[in-house]
Every structure is written in structure tokens, then in C-alpha cells.
């Protein structure tokens, strides 16, 4: 089986789907790997490194001879056009947002698998790129925020006076939120966090953060570890809590996502206005609409004296680690689905079933189907 | 036994008991068994009583036999007790 790795084409994307280490591993398993020249450059993986690992580094055109294509971001229509019929594709697809791509896959009878659809079960953890990337994003969000802040994080009692610790307010204690708590805490900030899922309280506290509980309401439906629906009453009480806390915050990091939906607005313009001048909001949900009304995707803007960081691709700012981890995730999935002589998966097996989007010209993924109506 | 002698024996008893309490205040768990065994050997001091019993009372059959029986048991207690305690403690040294 010949694996083809394409260079990412998305703006600002610095990651690459495989790392030299992982290439070595795949070669050992008797796969062939061809990589577009310069694909790893912005992750500081040189072509030479890949070659040393056993891959062939080739111009873009030649990559299309592969049987299975690996990428970080979704494939472009142009790329699909170059592939041979019946090839396979693996990457983050978020297929439910890309009807054209799905159509192209169907037409070309391409078997496509989506990294964002890996089920979050124990044995799939090694393939869970959402987690691995969110984790890095959580770290990076804090660093970005800290860098935009006119103050330092830790308490410092010095001869020239005492610097009070920065207050960091985090929304959402998922993978990214927890890592953000840990990182902000390490740097010495006072960290508070709120989440709709009540079990996150213990998790937040286990990292030294303070959990803000929305008092006196239940009304959150949690399904498979994801927040699915939140009652209106809850949202109102939550708003109240945020309104109160956000006034003192120096750095706000929002990570609240609801799978497959626009992310909830947690920070309104009013709230931004109430914040201290010079404070910073990092909106990690900006890709899916943002948790803050004012944040702008891929831009850092100052509004009402507050710096709003709308970086939509945080993991890409840590390309070395992000690519390393992603490579492990995607290769583990590939090895789960195939061996060197071809795909071997059982379509009813949970993981395969979860990730398979199109096959033999059909859209087979139920969730994607339900949204795209294709 | 006259009362005065008794009282002074009680003094001895009371003081020795206090001393017993004070001596053992903190003992690491590893020493629990050796300490138990070692003080068990000390309680074999009954051997002195047994000796006296076999000797002074050595005339009647029953008393004598009882004394001898007691002497054997007490000796086992004393000799075995010290020996086994020492064996245990020797082991600790090794580590």
C-alpha cells in the first residue's frame, strides 16, 4: 500500500500529516510512503529527514500515485480531482460542513475517513486527534493570551511593590480547557473555570483551578461526554455568573464547543465592555462561530480596550508537536483499518464505522448524512 | 505476709508497671514481633519460681511434679524465647 502525504494548502497551516518517526514505523510495516516535497518544512521536518526515514520525497504531482492519502485538513477539490478512482483519504474532514467534497468523493468512489469522527472510546484514544490537538491548543491559548497581556501571571512580592496575580477565566473544561487551566496555573495565575458538565468540577480542582458552579439549576444533557443541550434557564444563570466574574478577569479563554453545532455565545459585547482595559480574550471556539460575540476569526483585534484573539488554528502554532501527535493518531487509525496490502477493516466495527464517511460512491456516515441530506 | 512487706512489694509493682508503660512508647512496627517475643522471654522469669517450687516443695509428689512440669515449661519459654528473638533480630541486621 502506498501512502501519499500532501503538503497542507490551508492558510497559516504549518502542520503535516506524518512525522519522520512515524514514517519509519510505517515503512517497517511494509507500507510505501511518498511525501510532497516541503510538506514538513513549517513543522521543521526537512525533506532529508523524511528521506532518511525511508519515504520518497517527490513533487506534488507524483504524490497522487498513492493508494491512500493523508492530510491534516480536508482535501481540496483539486486534490481529489488528481486522485485515482477508488483511492482512500484520511484527514480532518468535518464532512458535514463540506457537501462539495463529499460529492467529489462519491463521484470518484473514494473511501474517505475522517479524523474528527474517531469515536471517543478507550481503545481509540491513540487515534484521537481531536484530543491531541485540543491539548496543544489549550497550552498555546494561554501563552498567546499571556503574551498579549500587559501584566505578568504570578504573584510577586518585590522591593518595588507587589504584583498581584493575573486572573484567568476559562470557559469549558474539555481537553483544551483543562490543559489551559494547567498551563495558566503553572505560570502562577489564579484560574477559574466553568463548564456545563458537572463532573468537570472535580477535574478542574484536580488541576488547582477553582470551579464556578452555576447554582441551583440542572438542565444540561450530557451525551457520551459531550454537552448536548443546555436549558434556557441554565444559560441565563450562567450568563449572570459570567457577567459577575468577567469584570475582574485579566485573561479569558473560551473553549466551549457543542459538537456539530455553532458554539454557544458566552461572552456578549456588554460583558466585553465591562472588562478591564488591557484584558485579553482568547476565543478558541472562533472556528465554529466563537464563544464571544466580538471575536474575529484569525484576527487579533482590540475592542472596548480588550484584546480579542481569534486564532482559529492554535495547534498549528506548535507545528512540531502537533504534527508529531497527529502523525501518531492518523497512522494508528490507518493501521487499524489496513495493512500493507490493503484495507482490512470490518465495516461494523465501532471505530471503522465511526470514521468511514464515503465508500464505493456512497455517503455511509450516518451523522454526516443526517446533516447534509445527501 | 505482713502488710508492710506487702505494701513495699506493691511499691515495686507500681513503679515497675509505670516503668513498663514508659519504656514502650513508640515502637516501629518491624519491632513489634521481636519485642513481643523478647518480653515473652522475660516473662519466663517464672523459671525462678519453678526452681524454688521444685526445690523447696520437692517433697510431695504432686507439688514436685507440678514444679518440675513448670520448670520444663518455663525453661522452654526462656531458652526458646531468647533464642528465637535473637534469630529474628539477627535478620534485621542483614538488610
Amino acid at each position: 500500500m502506498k501512502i501519499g502525504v500532501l503538503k497542507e494548502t490551508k492558510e497559516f497551516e504549518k502542520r503535516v500529516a506524518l512525522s519522520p518517526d512515524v514514517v519509519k514505523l510505517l515503512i517497517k510495516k511494509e507500507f510505501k510512503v511518498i511525501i510532497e516535497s516541503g510538506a514538513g518544512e513549517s513543522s521543521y521536518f526537512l525533506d532529508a529527514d523524511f528521506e532518511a526515514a525511508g519515504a520518497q520525497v517527490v513533487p506534488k504531482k507524483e504524490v497522487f500515485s498513492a493508494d491512500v492519502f493523508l492530510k491534516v485538513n480536508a482535501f481540496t477539490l483539486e486534490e481529489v480531482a488528481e486522485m485515482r478512482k477508488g483511492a482512500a483519504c484520511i484527514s480532518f474532514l468535518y464532512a458535514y460542513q463540506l457537501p462539495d467534497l463529499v460529492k467529489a468523493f462519491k463521484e470518484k468512489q473514494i473511501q474517505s475517513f475522517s479524523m474528527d469522527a474517531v469515536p471517543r472510546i478507550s481503545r481509540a484514544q491513540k487515534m484521537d486527534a481531536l484530543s491531541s490537538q485540543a491539548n496543544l491548543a489549550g497550552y498555546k491559548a494561554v501563552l498567546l493570551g499571556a503574551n498579549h497581556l500587559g501584566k505578568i501571571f504570578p504573584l510577586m512580592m518585590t522591593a518595588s511593590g507587589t504584583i498581584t496575580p493575573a486572573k484567568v477565566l476559562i470557559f469549558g473544561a474539555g481537553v483544551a480547557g483543562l490543559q489551559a487551566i494547567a498551563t495558566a496555573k503553572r505560570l502562577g495565575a489564579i484560574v477559574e473555570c466553568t463548564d456545563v458538565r458537572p463532573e468537570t468540577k472535580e477535574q478542574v480542582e484536580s488541576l488547582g483551578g477553582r470551579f464556578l458552579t452555576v447554582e441551583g439549576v440542572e438542565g444540561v444533557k450530557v451525551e457520551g461526554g459531550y454537552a448536548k443541550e443546555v436549558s434556557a434557564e441554565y444559560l441565563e444563570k450562567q450568563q449572570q455568573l459570567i457577567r459577575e466574574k468577567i469584570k475582574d478577569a485579566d485573561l479569558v479563554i473560551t473553549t466551549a464547543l457543542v459538537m456539530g453545532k455553532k458554539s454557544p455565545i458566552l461572552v456578549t459585547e456588554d460583558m466585553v465592555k465591562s472588562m478591564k482595559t488591557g484584558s485579553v480574550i482568547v476565543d478558541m471556539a472562533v472556528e465554529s462561530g466563537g464563544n464571544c460575540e466580538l471575536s474575529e476569526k484569525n484576527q487579533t483585534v482590540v475592542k472596548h480596550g480588550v484584546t480579542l484573539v481569534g486564532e482559529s488554528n492554535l495547534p498549528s502554532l506548535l507545528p512540531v508537536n502537533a504534527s508529531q501527535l497527529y502523525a501518531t493518531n492518523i497512522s494508528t487509525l490507518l493501521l487499524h483499518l489496513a495493512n500493507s496490502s490493503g484495507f482490512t477493516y470490518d465495516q461494523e466495527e465501532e471505530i471503522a464505522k465511526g470514521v468511514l464517511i464515503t465508500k464505493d460512491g456512497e455517503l455511509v456516515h450516518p451523522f454526516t448524512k443526517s446533516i447534509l441530506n445527501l | 505476709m505482713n502488710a508492710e512487706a506487702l505494701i513495699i512489694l506493691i511499691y515495686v509493682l507500681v513503679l515497675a508497671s509505670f516503668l513498663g508503660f514508659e519504656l514502650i512508647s513508640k515502637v516501629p512496627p518491624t519491632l513489634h514481633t521481636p519485642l513481643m517475643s523478647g518480653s515473652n522471654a522475660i516473662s519466663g522469669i517464672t523459671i525462678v519460681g519453678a526452681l524454688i517450687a521444685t526445690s523447696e516443695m520437692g517433697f510431695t509428689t504432686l507439688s514436685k511434679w507440678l514444679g518440675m512440669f513448670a520448670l520444663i515449661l518455663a525453661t522452654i519459654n526462656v531458652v526458646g524465647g531468647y533464642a528465637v528473638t535473637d534469630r529474628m533480630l539477627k535478620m534485621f541486621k542483614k538488610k
Partner: protein
Amino acid sequence: MSNIVQIAYLIASVLFVLGIKFLGKTKDARRGNMLSAVGMLIAIVATLTTLEIMSFVEMFACMLVGGAIGLYYAKKVEMTQIPEMVALFNGFGGMASLGVALSDHFFKTQVQGVEIDTVNSVSIIASVLIGGVTFTGSVVAWLKLNGKVSGQPITFSGQHLLNLLLLLTFLGVAVMTYLFQIEPIYITILVAIALLVGVLIVIPIGGADMPVVISLLNSYSGMAACATGFILNNNVLIVAGSLVGASGIILTQIMCKAMNRSLMNVLLGGFGQTTSAGAQDGPSIVIKEIGVEESAMLFDSASSVIVVPGYGMAVAQAQHVMRELMEQCEKRNIDFRFAIHPVAGRMPGHMNVLLAEANISYDKLIEMESINDDFANTDIVLVVGANDVVNPAARTNPQSPIYGMPILNADKARTVIVSKRSMGKGYAGIENELFGYPNCLMLFGDAKQTLTKVVGEMKEMS
């Protein structure tokens, strides 16, 4: 009695005091035992000089026989059987006191025909009671420990009532013994009751609690010797006996505390020594509990330790205690490492963050793949608030939601100590059969609190 003998007794008493004192200190324990043995020798030799040796031959024969038996068993016994050996020796000591008391009684009443005064009489009766209880109690303890009798508590209804009745009877007969000294029947009944009581109070106690019982019986045998001292008006017996009596009680209490039990609780017995897992579904697992001190002793004698931290460590914020444990172990040259499971905790790198906070150097943290083969050669694995990541079901049970997840081979270690609060489940919400494995010991309680205690114990030991 000559003054020299008295002075010898005094010296012996002092040696006993020093002996017990040193026995409680790790460094001096052996010397302490020697000292008290020397004291014993002095006391014996001094006694021999006072005797009008009528029965020299018998006496030496008895001592030879007793000494040989004692020495033989002391040398032969296996290390693991020492507690039962101690129990047996102790029983002999009690029986000897009983024998001396009886002998004195018969001598005075039957041979000399003198009236035994109150003090003497009380002493004799006390010696019979305590000696008798010590003897049969110790024998039962011995039988339970070496498995000749089931280690299970043997209980029946009315047990405590029976004991009470027996004691009352004893008191009644004791009065009779005093009043009708010449009648040997009464004292014989006393002996019988004492022996019976000894059996009855030990059988309801479970095998695991035996060490405490033996310690208590040891204290009794000291008291019996003390009572004998009053019979014979002999100081060294009183001093040695009361030293052992008092220190034995204290030791018993220390041991009870170490087992987290009250003495009452042990003596009333019948509570069983196994806690069964509070599992509502699935087959319930039979687990073994371990206490703080025993854990500390296990660490103390280990040569390699691996810690498996999990989400519970984070919840308990026990990371700092782990560093202390590490320091204690490294002071003892114990190889000490952490095995980090990739998904331990609730976020990637959760354990790393916490252990870094506790200043545990990175090279102590070993990845799963690198350490998984080392478990089999490890003396102790301490699982701190981890559950799913050491659940063997992931290897063996295809039905399990975690099947296929790689896990840490903690179960392969010689001994596994699991620190968690209860039999509560982990993230995956499933039972963990590891907890029921024969090499697994549960250390229940909040990880930070219990392990702080373990570390405290270890500090004391050194």
C-alpha cells in the same frame, strides 16, 4: 535469702528494664535481648545458689529437657512461623506460673498444712487464672496460626454470656478455695475454668488479629509471673512480671492502633477479616485490605517500587506526598519510578503536570511502553487513584468497554498496593478484577491522607 542473691536479683531487674527499653529501638534491639538474657541467667544462677538442692538431678534434668526443646524449636522454626512459636512459648510461660502456684498451694495445704494468708491466696488464684488463660489462649492462637484450626473466627450465640458466667463461677469457686483451702477440688475446678476461658476468649478472634491477641497474652503471662512473685515474695519476679505486663499492654495497644482497630473490637472478635467489595453488579470481588503501617513496612523492605498514578492522585492532590514517598524510598536505596499511562487522569499529560509541580524530576517518569516489562521484576507497585489504566479486563475481556486499550502491567508485580477511597469505579465505570488478585492489597482512604501516614511511618522506622 542472702543479700547477695537479692542484689543479684536487683541487677537482673535492672537488666530487664534496659532490655525492654532497648528492644523498642531498632538499633539496640539485639543488644537489649542479650542484656535481658544475661539478667535471666543471673537470676537463675542466683536462685540456684539459694536452694537447698535436694533434687539437683531432677532440676537439671528438667532444665536440660526444657532448654533443649526450646533451643531446638527456636532454631528450627521457619521465619514465617515465628509468631506461632512465640505464642506457644508464651503459653508455656503461663502454664509454668500456674504450675508454680498450684505447687505452692498443694505444698502449703497438703504437706505443710499451714493456713495460706489472704495475700498469698489471692496471688495463687490470680496466678492460676491468668496462667491458665494464657496457656490455653496461646495454644489456640498457635493452632489457628499454623492452620491446625481454622483461622476463621468461631462464634456462637451466647458466647459472651458464657464467658461472663464462667468468670462468675470462677469468682465463686475462688472464694471457696480460700475458705476451704484443704480441699484440692476447688483449686482444681479453678484450673479447669481458667483453661476453658482461655480457649473461649481466643476462638472467636480471626487469624489476622492473632498477633494482637498474642501480644495481649504475653502481657498476661507477665502478670502471671508477677502474681507468682507475690506468692513467693520474690522481687525479681514482681519487677520482671510487671514490666512485661505493662509494656505488653502498651505494645498491644500500639499494635491495635497500627491495625486501625480498637482493642475491644479485636477482643470481641467475630467481625471477619475480609471486607467484601461493595459492588452492586457483577461478581463481587474478595479483596484484602492493608493498613498504613503494614504498607510502610512493605515499602521499607522492598528493593524496587513503581508508582502508578491516576486520576485519584489528582483529585486527592497527592502529588506532593508522592515526592516524599520517593525521598523515603531513595534514602533506603530502593529503586523508585513512576509509570505514566498515556491516558491516566482526565487530560493528556495530567500526571506530568502534577508530578512536575511536586518537583519530581522528569527522569523518574517512565512511559508505559518502556516500563511495562519491568513490572514482573518489581517488588511493589503502588497504584495511587488509578483504576482503568491498570484494569486487566482491557487485556482479557472483549466485552469490556476498555478492551484493547493498552494498560500498565501492574498486576504482574510481586505485590500491588492500591490506594483509593473505596471500591468506586473509574472513568470507564467498570469493575477492576485486579483488586481481587491474590497479590493485591487495598489501602483504603483518600490517597493524600493515607499515603501521608505511610510516609510518616516510614520516617519513624528509619
